[in-house]
């Protein structure tokens, strides 16, 4: 089930989101439980192909818990209600812990290594290994938690306090972000190499991002591409 959970987003779509992937990951369990009753197996597959959304790394928690319920022959409506109840928290929690904290933390540290002159292959290897120790560890732990806890998974999850882990990692991320900003500003080949005016402009751009948040990302990218496009066009025409 852990291996199949790696493909849980294989057929991500706007109608069922992770739904079909959930059923796909659960299929061996469903066949084991309902293998002798094709009608019941079909109903179980349909039940688990319905809409489901969660962070992909935390989805194994739901998979494990639901596998436990199905193995215990809990009735279909109860399983369906349980599945619906757990999907929301697993989405928000995963986004905060993984996308907003763990991934940027490892990426920022890797970029710092790169700007400090560590060879590219080593930087990439460090990023992939460190990131995936957390990633695969989280998946395996989640599946085990779900299988052990069954319908009590909510209480066990609250006790573990994954949100607290995210908050604890944000401090190191703030330090890493500071180091990265300093290195990009001062390292050979960094902003300062282009001249003090560029360093001042970069500081202003940083403040724009700090104040504006995500809504300024796209305009900033458009301006960057536009300026470079203009320089290129100027070269072609003159």
């Amino acid at each position, binding site marked *: 089930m852990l291996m199949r959970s790696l493909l849980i987003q294989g*057929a991500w779509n706007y*109608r069922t989101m992770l739904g079909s992937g959930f059923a796909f990951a659960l299929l061996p369990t469903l066949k084991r439980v309902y293998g002798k009753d094709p009608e019941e197996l079909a109903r179980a597959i349909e039940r688990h*192909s319905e809409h489901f959304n969660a962070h992909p790394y935390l989805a194994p928690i739901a998979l494990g818990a639901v596998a436990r319920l199905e193995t215990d022959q809990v009735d279909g409506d109860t399983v369906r209600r349980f599945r619906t109840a757990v999907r929301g928290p697993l989405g928000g929690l995963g986004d905060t812990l993984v996308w907003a904290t763990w991934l940027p933390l490892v990426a920022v540290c890797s970029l710092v290594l790169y700007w400090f002159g560590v060879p*590219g292959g080593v930087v990439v290897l460090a990023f992939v290994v460190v990131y995936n120790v957390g990633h695969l560890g989280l998946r395996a732990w989640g599946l085990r938690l779900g299988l052990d806890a069954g319908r009590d998974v909510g209480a066990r999850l609250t006790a573990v306090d994954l949100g607290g882990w995210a908050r604890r990692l944000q401090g190191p991320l*703030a330090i890493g*972000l500071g180091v*990265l900003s300093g290195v990009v500003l001062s390292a050979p080949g960094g902003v300062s190499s282009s*001249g003090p005016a560029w360093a001042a402009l970069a500081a202003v751009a940083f403040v724009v991002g*700090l104040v504006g948040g995500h809504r300024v990302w796209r305009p900033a990218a458009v301006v960057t591409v536009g300026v470079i496009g203009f320089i290129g066009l100027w*070269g072609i025409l003159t």
Partner: protein
Amino acid sequence: MTELLRFGLLGGLLGLDGTAVGQFMISRPLVAGWLAGWVAGVPGMGIAIGAILELFLLVSFPTGGARFPEGSTAAVVAVGVAVPFEGSGAVAASVAMGLVWGQVGGWSVTVQRHVNGRLLSEDIGRHTGRLGRAHLLAIVGDFLRGAVVTVAGVTLGRAGLGLADGRWPVDAGVSTGVLYVGAAVSLGILLHDLGGFRRRRVLFVLGLAVGIVGARFL
């Protein structure tokens, strides 16, 4: 042609990592750029481009149903575009192309997701084999999508940059300066996400000092 095919294969494989298979984050620009450079025999250039794109896309994640710039497509296309050119604007122009094509990649992911919805019929449970086949078909489709988008991006980008090659009117310092100014916005956004400067000022300034002093010893 063979090189283009290699970029296409890499774009397809890394595109899968973005959402459909594993999400090991080998599709992040830092890794994808290095891999694309390695495929082309210039890993140093690959990671240099990948690192700049990673700065831009530090605040871009494959969250749920949101449309996001596809980092792997951006990085592979940028490196693929930069390889044949040596002028002072090669890196800047290829990163710009990568940023544009990352958006195209993101749009193609949205289209693929609509196609996936059609592959999965409402009565999928009636035929147990159909679920696995539909899943596999969606993954193959996503691979082909990534490959086609990458090849198209590299081809178009090379044609465009070919016009400006040797005619770039500013030096490399100005070109990379523009990139860093754009990327600095993403660093600011990341600090915004962490609660803003007021909340994180001590840790951020401490790190900034370490970074500036550390860079002096390089």
